[in-house]
């Protein structure tokens, strides 16, 4: 019954930006560690890459790409607001940000082997 002051697009955009940021902050150390295997244990990395070409992993990677794209596009909206004074069309920009993120995710997924 209780609606709150959080029930509007620019707030959801904030939530998405924060959640995607935290997920990325967790993902990146893992990503860099896996990548470091290329130098220290190439065979292990190749095994990992084979495992990661399974559909479920590819789907999770796509999710991470969408998070990255969402954080990026949302961040661009914020930079426009803060540095260029682009205050209008906020809801449209939020919608565009989500749309572009999903599109990028799709391109990633379709190119995944």
């Amino acid at each position: 019954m209780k609606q709150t002051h959080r029930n509007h697009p620019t707030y959801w955009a904030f939530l998405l930006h924060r959640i995607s940021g935290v997920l990325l902050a967790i993902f990146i150390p893992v990503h860099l560690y896996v990548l470091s295997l290329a130098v220290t244990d190439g065979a292990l990395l190749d095994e990992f890459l084979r495992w990661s070409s399974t559909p479920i992993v590819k789907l999770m990677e796509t999710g991470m790409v969408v998070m990255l794209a969402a954080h990026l596009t949302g961040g661009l909206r914020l930079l426009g607001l803060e540095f260029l004074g682009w205050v209008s069309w906020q809801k449209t920009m939020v919608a565009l940000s989500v749309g572009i993120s999903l599109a990028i995710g799709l391109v990633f997924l379709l190119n995944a082997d």
Partner: protein
Amino acid sequence: MIQNTVQSETWLWLAQRTSAVVLAVCIAVHLTTMIIAMQGGLSTAEIAGRISGNPMWLVFYGIFLTAVAIHAPIGMRTVLLESTQLSAKRVGLLTMLLGLFVFVLGVRTIFGLYQMVPAS
């Protein structure tokens, strides 16, 4: 990041926004590269082959990594300060460690890949 003066907070904020702009460019390059590289499957040899001996990638990933090592810790600092009861000092320390970890791990990998002799 451990101090809490108006000046230090302002510089942190500026570093966050500046690294964000750098990352916007780097991510665009990175995503495109990955989407192309992924076609036909990824392998250690393929990754090493692209980067080894190539100063352009060395510089690119160096800049990319530095920007990440600045942006992620400052971002996590804000999140932790707002959603936990940890002191500003503790949060500053934790996030600096994150940045250091990311940077050191990343630098070793980049240089390692650059110096690798590609497998024949």
